[in-house]
């Protein structure tokens, strides 16, 4: 068994010398690490032939903080706030992933109320994340107005979070044994108001941007990802679903109270940028449906089943749990030694990492300007890639 490992320097050699004096020469262009499209610090090396992209070499690691290594010296409760800082637009879901694996390992029971609140918060954040993504995509593709509209809705949902959780971005809300606070007395009313407000807003988004000819032309049939390729690359979330594979952990794995609600998995027909765009638009509608089904019937019960200062004992073994974040499957792989509270190694399976590498399969053959649309439709969050 041999594995070829090529360093970046070897990758950056021109593949051939031009045979004909008039033949075009390949050249490399750096995108990033400081580039407005990267939404963070991501370096992409493009091998170009004229305007056509031959190869994309992602060079991640500009925000690598060593979170997984740090977690080996932290207790489960202390790990939870660090997961906020991976994919910060899906903070609740990341909290939930590590909480699930700890709860599985330690055998902590949770109740209906806790699970309902967790589900509600996750779905609200999915709407928020997609709204933000929609605005930023609009900005990347040249429509600044979309940015203003997307962030307007983000603020509205942020206010709900602020009231119940006390933070706008880094939540640390879903914790082993329950949730940090009970929901605020205003929560139910406020969520209902916001959901009633959001429903026409998404149609408004369609009017504003989806029907725009520029967006259509820049997205339609650009960057087609076949379902086989998407599965082979390990893409998850809207990127995989846009390729037509209805893989949604909310249906596949039994967690939260997703089995009690009625919602559809949104899939695309072709797998191009337009499908990846519209899958998220439709997912916002489905998330609103989920929230509306759950908000009226939050069961009674305690919101924390575990005393805070007690250590969480995890017996020896390996544990893996995953949840569906706004960008795909976020998993936590934990090995407990049984000696202390701290995990021995902890590995995060981040959706953005796999989605990033799909750009190597997507980009070749397209123009440089299409890379913008492709990257934008992948909805990458860089700290989640680098961890």
């Amino acid at each position, binding site marked *: 068994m041999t594995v070829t490992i090529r360093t970046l320097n070897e990758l950056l050699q021109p593949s051939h010398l031009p045979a004909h004096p008039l033949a075009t020469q390949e050249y490399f262009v750096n995108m990033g*690490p*400081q*580039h*407005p499209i990267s*939404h*963070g*610090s991501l370096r992409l090396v493009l091998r170009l032939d004229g305007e056509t992209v031959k190869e994309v070499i992602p060079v991640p*690691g*500009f*925000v*690598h*903080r*060593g*979170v997984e*290594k*740090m977690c080996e*010296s*932290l207790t489960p409760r202390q790990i939870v*706030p*660090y997961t*906020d*800082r991976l994919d*910060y*637009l899906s903070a609740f879901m990341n909290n939930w992933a590590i909480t699930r694996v700890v709860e599985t390992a330690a055998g902590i029971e949770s109740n209906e109320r806790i699970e309902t609140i967790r589900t509600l918060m996750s779905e609200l954040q999915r709407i928020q994340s997609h709204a*933000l993504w929609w*605005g*930023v995509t609009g900005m990347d593709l040249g429509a600044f107005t979309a*940015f*203003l509209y*997307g*962030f*307007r809705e*983000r*603020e509205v949902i942020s206010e709900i979070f602020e009231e119940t959780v006390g933070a*706008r*971005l*880094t939540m640390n809300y879903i914790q082993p044994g329950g949730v940090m606070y009970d929901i605020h007395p205003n929560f139910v009313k406020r969520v209902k108001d916001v959901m009633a407000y959001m429903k026409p807003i998404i149609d408004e988004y369609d009017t504003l941007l989806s029907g725009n000819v520029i967006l259509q032309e820049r997205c339609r049939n650009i960057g087609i990802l076949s379902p086989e390729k998407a599965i082979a690359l390990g893409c998850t979330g809207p990127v995989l679903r846009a390729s037509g594979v209805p893989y949604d952990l909310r249906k596949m794995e039994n967690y939260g109270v997703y089995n009690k609600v009625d919602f559809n998995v949104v899939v695309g027909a072709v797998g191009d940028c337009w499908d990846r765009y519209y899958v998220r638009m439709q997912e916002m509608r489905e998330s609103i449906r989920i929230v509306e089904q759950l908000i009226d019937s939050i069961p009674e019960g305690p919101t924390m089943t575990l005393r805070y200062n007690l250590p969480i004992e995890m017996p020896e073994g390996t544990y893996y749990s995953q949840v569906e974040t706004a960008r795909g499957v976020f998993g936590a792989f934990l090995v407990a030694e049984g000696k202390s509270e701290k995990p021995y190694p902890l590995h995060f399976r981040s959706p953005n990492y796999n989605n990033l590498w799909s750009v190597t399969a997507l980009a070749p053959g397209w123009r440089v300007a299409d890379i913008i649309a492709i990257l934008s439709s992948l909805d990458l969050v*860089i*700290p989640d890639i680098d961890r």
Partner: protein
Amino acid sequence: MGLITETLPAVIEKFPGGSLIVTSMDYAINCSRANSLWPLTFGTKCCAIEMLMATGAAHQDLSRFGAEVARASVRQADLMVIAGAIVKKMAPRMRMLYEQMAEPRYVIATGACAVSGGPFMYNSYSIVRGADEVIPVDVYVPGCPPRPEAFFWGLLALQKMIKEGESVRRPGIRRKPVMAALPNGMTAADVRAEIQRELEQDNVIDVEKEAESKPWAAKVKEWIRKSSSIS
């Protein structure tokens, strides 16, 4: 809403030929700089969402401070908002970006990661513990992430610093309102209170009260009332 309520300084520096214009020029230039900061879109992590995106959007409107022209190119920017963690791989790049910026250039470090390494201060092998280990930082805005309002407060502090800051004739010598080492007999609480007092005095004006003193105030009020009642 210029937020400049100071009167022009009437200090005449005496030397042959007179110097009233030059001193006023300093002031005018510094005011212009303070009120037209062009930030660089340099966000590495979560703070970028709050500091550079949310502030630029409608709810918190960065353009009220004249700083909405976010530039992707360092050559056109004069304010670097370090929003997020700086790791060892990124640090040389950040230094390079900073050096490419034209003088005068200002740096705000927002969020715990940029101020001190923050959540990753201990146990992490790759973080730079504070952006000021790489480049000089003018204003620190703590929080994880700070709210957009907290960032505005930091921006106002920076504007304050620029306004009474360096002279055009002697560039590079920047006077921070708070000295690095505290003078004798002064506590840090005094310093904080002073910053607070100064900023409030300069930058907080009651819009409605100001507007009422203007002759066109009634008309505008009427118009706002009409237009909001339509919807």
